């Protein structure tokens, strides 16, 4: 049971499964960092992303690239609209945390009800078959989906890193994240930064929903659970630490995969929340990276 090859297989599958969650967590955490909002409207955007692609491929019969393009347009479009006609309105009114909480959550609920009306509550997938061709590499089963997922995630994170580090726009984001008022004094528009973040997280959401939707069934309600996993990764990584949040969601996925060796599969989700609980009570400011590494090695 503890043979190295099995452990390696679990490690690989765990990492691959974490890919879409990493993408969602990064989108959520980046938004939190720059706008200061726990943007639950992202679950509505997840639903829009998936069902747009689903309809484009299965309803209109469009090829993948067109479906993804349409998904990006719809998701980013809705994100920017929500930003301009929703969040900014409440910012101008100086509304409090709770207002944003209600607004973003109810908006997502609204989107989900509309989608339920249009598409029903049966689980849907992007492709007719969710089986993905498998290669055996060094004794480990590696599916096409695994490769796409990991490749896409590395690409997205690399692009984000480069963007934040080397472009003016990215540095503006960091400045606004640091202190929006101060940034405005230096002529950086916070509103513009918020819109840019809305688009970036929309891209991450589309990528993640493509991965999730080609791997298993989605119902209109699924995004509400997905956004919660992003919340947990964000908390565990530490608020404002986007890449740490990415590591945290990989870590969580691995813990869940490896737990199969020790406990029944139905307890896996509970483990996730166990970590959330412990983080909230013991490390209110987020688990720091070195500690996370130690925890990994300790396993």
């Amino acid at each position, binding site marked *: 049971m503890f043979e190295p090859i099995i452990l390696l297989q679990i490690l690989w599958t765990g990492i691959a499964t974490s890919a879409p969650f990493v993408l969602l967590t990064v989108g959520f955490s980046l938004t939190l960092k720059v706008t200061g909002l726990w943007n639950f409207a992202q679950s509505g955007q997840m639903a829009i992303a998936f069902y747009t692609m689903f309809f484009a491929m299965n309803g209109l019969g469009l090829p993948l690239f067109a479906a993804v393009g349409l998904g990006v347009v719809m998701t980013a479009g809705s994100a920017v609209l929500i930003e301009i006609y929703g969040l900014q309105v409440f910012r101008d009114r100086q509304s409090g945390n709770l207002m944003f909480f209600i607004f973003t959550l*109810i908006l997502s609920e609204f989107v989900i009800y509309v989608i339920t009306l249009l598409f029903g509550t049966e689980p849907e997938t992007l492709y007719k078959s969710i089986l993905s061709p498998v290669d055996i590499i060094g004794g480990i089963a590696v599916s096409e989906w695994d490769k796409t997922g990991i490749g896409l995630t590395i690409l997205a994170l690399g692009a984000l890193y480069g963007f934040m580090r080397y472009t003016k726009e990215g540095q503006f984001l960091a400045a606004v994240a640091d202190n929006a008022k101060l940034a405005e004094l230096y002529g950086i528009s916070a509103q513009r930064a918020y819109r840019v973040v809305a688009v970036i997280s929309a891209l991450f959401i589309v990528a993640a929903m493509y991965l999730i939707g080609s791997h298993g069934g989605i119902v209109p309600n699924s995004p509400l659970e997905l956004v919660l996993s992003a919340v947990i990764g964000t908390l565990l990584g530490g608020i404002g630490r986007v890449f740490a949040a990415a590591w945290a969601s990989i870590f969580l996925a691995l813990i869940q995969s490896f737990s199969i060796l020790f406990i029944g599969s139905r307890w896996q989700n509970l483990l996730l929340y166990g970590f959330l609980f412990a983080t909230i009570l013991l490390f209110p400011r987020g688990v720091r990276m070195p500690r996370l590494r130690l925890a990994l090695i300790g396993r």
Partner: protein
Amino acid sequence: MDYLITLAILIAIYVILGASYNLVIGYGGLSTVAHPIFFAIGAYTTGLLSVNVPELPAVVNVLLGMVTAVVASVLLAGSALRVSGDYLLIASLGFQLGLLQLIKNLDFTGGPGGLSAIPSTILGAARGPAFLAITGAAAVACVFIIRAIVNGPYGRAISAMRDEELAFTALGRNAMSMKIAIFAIGCGMAGGAGGIYAYYFQYISPDQFEVLASATILTMVVLGGMGTPFGPVVGAILLLAIPQAITFLQLPPAIMAPTQGIIFTVLVLVFLYLRPAGILGNKARAI
């Protein structure tokens, strides 16, 4: 008729939830979203006791449900408020999600399928009206108890604490214990509502107490007018009754449920834009 009685009972239960939540966030200024989990704690405690310890009278079960909710709320507030007031928001969310997950995974709670076969306690044709009388009385009592709390000297202290916590503390008041007390009173009432709910519907499941329920209760409070004694009453009636107005259309369930949801959410969104202080609220207290 049964349908109307059930709706009225549901409204009364949500009046309790809304009013007690209003005490916590509207008057106490404590940001939490976890109110449904205390509703759940009351419901599950009462439900489990009634199923497993049938010799206990219903009233005792409901009271024990309240006590459990109070204990849990004191633990949560006691640890989270020590970090900071804002932290309570996140901690409460984590507490809610974690506990629900636990309920879903344990066997004796009935797991994700929920806890069923809760004894009906009151039998016969009078069951509905009797429950309505009990729940209605409890709701009225809650609203007026809260009003008494916030109108008297205690309420003066609460608003002073919310306005200027530092000055309040420097006048010799223990803000921390006051916050915990407010939180415990509000959560205990929610626990009591849970107990009544379990007895009337005889079935509870974890997904009734998810974040969506948080948003629903919060919305009732905001819509009615946060920090006003009767705001949550108006909010609960409005948000539960208006979506029901289309039931006469006899739509198939697959269309009915999401349509009601759309009516509910659109109503909320419109209010958030047009009247953020709520129906009975004054503009100065908009969140």
